[in-house]
């Protein structure tokens, strides 16, 4: 595959950014003066409008002029940090800033751009960066904005649990005796990947089969069930039910399958049975009949023979696994920490939503858990395929569009969809948001970002469009490009916030002081659920990536395919898993 450009060479990372070493003049300046001069500038930092760029002005009505030539209209005017003298710098023309640095005694090399609040070294003739200066700028902007976080749910899970090193475990003699006493090792004759097994179509159930195949090969989910973390025999025993068939016969005539059967209903048990069957080594197609039966009892409003939506099934299934967790231990999902059940532990992330009043800058922030991200395809062809890498923070001033790099190749891409998902969006005049500070409804700017990434990211592409007005629905067949490796860093709350505040060096919401933070944003594709055909007469198929080989799971038929087939396929649900897992110490007591 493609080679990765290594950006990590000689800079060290702080808060997931590179922190460039200071130039000798800045180093000397700091050695002599510390960070006081930068922090003192905080009083002079003024934003022209809420959420706007900070400028340096001694008083609000000041019009800075170059001390040497009197010009005020130069694109760059620099104020010396040592003596506050303002000089212009206009290459290829004269640089009075450079003249100031050389003509004065040493210590006047560091200046600040009065319009952009950027540090400049007049000797090196280059823009420089300083952590304390940036902190001063951000703090001045925050104070101006007077933002508050209205949290609908307190993100408790955001408390940092320290990471621990992975300690490999292998069974000791006593463990081996235990393991072998009631079981025999599986014999995987061929080299075929384990767990690869077709699923019989039970009658328009490809929507279910496709999602099940993806889940059967979702690494953390697979590991959970194969590690016997939900033992269906033990679960049955605990719920005190012996034989469901007998019950079934008795209740057959009541018609809605409630009561006794529900006590035995456990989608996790059915999943456990399915994992056992699929990984058993038996390669004949498996019929997920019991699972269908259980799911229809759980989601009775979806129980019908017609073709269903795979995404709807996915959500319903996760909910089903969550519901059936022991009631005493069941924690509500609203925290998004995923401690409630394995389904949420694997798929649950946290989204952050910021709504900023355009009149006063007051920002209201909410956090909400999510198990996947649904993305719109552009409604018109040839929409911006790639946003530029620079998102100017001017966008907070009102321009809802990010600057395009101009490389519009006309293809929709997953990253393009994510860019659109996280871009600041103006809530129009008909959608005014009540501002706590202004105490009236104001036009606002809304921006989404990802506060916490799940272990497994499922992206749902909204290909089915409904119009209740026109009473019609249609399917959007347009191709969507998706990468095999995905870096989610640009969509994190820390990145979005940082960009909003001019990309300053500052710990933003979600920044972890862990040097390995950037790796937990890297994801790798492992499953793609595709839909072909029409809205009401279509077919779902799943492509699985096992040991870097792609397999097509079309109900009972499992075949090997070239990766080009997958790249060219019409993705409907795209599954990515974190490249690297980190371990945190367990909160459970373990008997030694």
């Amino acid at each position, binding site marked *: 595959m493609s080679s990765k450009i290594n950006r990590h060479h000689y800079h060290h990372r702080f808060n997931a950014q590179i922190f460039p070493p200071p130039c000798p003049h800045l180093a000397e300046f700091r050695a002599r003066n510390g960070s006081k001069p930068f922090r003192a500038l905080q009083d002079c930092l003024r934003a022209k409008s809420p959420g706007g760029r900070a400028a340096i002005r001694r008083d609000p009505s000041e019009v800075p002029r170059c001390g040497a030539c009197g010009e005020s209209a130069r*694109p760059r005017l620099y104020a010396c940090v040592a003596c506050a003298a303002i000089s212009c710098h206009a290459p290829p023309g004269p640089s009075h800033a450079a003249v100031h640095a050389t003509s004065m005694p040493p210590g006047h090399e560091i200046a600040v751009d009065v319009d952009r609040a950027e540090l400049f070294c007049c000797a090196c003739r280059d823009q420089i960066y300083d952590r304390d200066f940036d902190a001063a700028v951000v703090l001045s902007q925050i104070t101006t904005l007077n933002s508050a976080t209205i949290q609908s749910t307190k993100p408790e899970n955001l408390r940092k649990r320290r990471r621990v090193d992975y300690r490999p475990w292998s069974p000791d003699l006593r463990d081996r005796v235990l393991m072998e006493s009631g079981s025999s090792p599986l014999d995987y004759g061929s080299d075929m990947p384990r767990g690869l097994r077709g699923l019989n179509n039970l009658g328009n159930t490809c929507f279910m089969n496709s999602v099940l195949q993806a889940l059967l090969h979702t690494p953390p989910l697979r590991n959970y069930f194969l590690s016997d973390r939900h033992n269906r025999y033990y679960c049955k025993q605990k719920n005190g039910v012996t034989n469901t*068939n007998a019950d079934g016969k008795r209740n057959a005539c009541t018609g809605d*399958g409630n009561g006794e059967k529900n006590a035995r209903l456990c989608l996790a048990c059915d999943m456990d049975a399915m994992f056992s069957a699929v990984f058993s080594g038996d390669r004949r197609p498996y019929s997920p009949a019991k699972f269908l039966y259980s799911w229809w009892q759980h989601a009775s*409003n979806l129980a019908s023979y*017609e*073709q269903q939506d795979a995404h709807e099934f996915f959500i319903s299934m996760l909910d089903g696994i969550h519901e059936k967790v022991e009631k005493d231990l069941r924690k509500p999902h609203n925290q998004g920490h995923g401690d409630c059940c394995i389904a949420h532990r694997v798929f649950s992330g946290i989204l952050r939503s910021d709504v900023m009043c355009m009149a006063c800058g007051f920002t209201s922030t909410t956090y909400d858990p999510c*198990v996947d991200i649904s993305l719109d395809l552009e409604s018109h062809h040839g929409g911006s395929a790639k946003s530029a890498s620079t998102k100017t923070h001017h966008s907070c001033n009102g321009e809802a569009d990010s600057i395009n790099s101009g490389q519009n190749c006309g293809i929709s891409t997953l990253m393009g969809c994510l860019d659109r998902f996280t871009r600041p969006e103006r809530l129009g005049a008909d959608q005014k948001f009540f501002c706590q500070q202004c105490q009236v409804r104001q036009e606002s700017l809304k921006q989404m970002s990802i506060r916490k990434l799940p272990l497994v990211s499922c992206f*749902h592409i909204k290909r089915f469009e409904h119009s209740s007005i026109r009473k019609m629905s249609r399917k959007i067949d347009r191709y969507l490009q998706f990468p*095999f490796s995905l870096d989610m860093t640009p969509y994190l709350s820390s990145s979005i916030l940082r960009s909003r505040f001019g990309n300053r060096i500052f710990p933003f919401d979600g920044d972890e002081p862990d040097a390995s933070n950037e790796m937990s944003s890297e994801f790798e594709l492992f499953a793609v659920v595709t839909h072909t055909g029409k809205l009401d007469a279509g077919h779902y198929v799943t492509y699985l990536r096992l040991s870097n080989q792609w397999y097509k799971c079309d109900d009972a038929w499992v075949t090997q395919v070239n990766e080009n*087939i997958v790249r060219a396929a019409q993705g409907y649900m795209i599954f990515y898993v974190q490249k690297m897992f980190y371990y945190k110490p367990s909160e459970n007591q373990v008997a030694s």
Partner: protein
Amino acid sequence: MSGPNEDNLSPHTQLSSHFFGDLLDSIIVDVASECHRIAKLGLDRNLEEEEEELRLSTQARVRVADPSNSGETNSKYVVDIFGQTHPPVANEIFECMNCGRSIMAGRFAPHLEKCMGKGRKARLKATRSSTAAQNRYSRGSPVSTYSPHSNSSSTNRLSNGTPGIAGEEYSNGTLEEP
């Protein structure tokens, strides 16, 4: 920024050209300064990788579209990787866990639908009773319940432009216990 024939331009035009030039220079410096910061702080996106992925996808689509390539054949008549063939309709036989009858796999879902009293036909019978009002609140009208589409109300939560309901918890919001 000078016009083509500066001498011929009126003082007004010269002045406006001059102002325009200053504004343009200022904007250029804005962008340069921002890009400089992003590059120096390592905040730029790995465009090389992104472009590589895009290139691979474009290449893949070309190759797949080429009729001379052995593309995907209709899976139903193919031998799978384990060397097995399967009939178009799954013919495994097992017992229905609701009524105990022996059912063929490929016909299990329609059987189960009737067996459990679910499905549109069974529902329409029930609709005439008191459950009708209940149905109205679960995901809209009974008709839309069976649509094979994703429920837009559950996905709207994440789309941009949803006004002022940021506090709403994201949930499928529709699943009700029978």
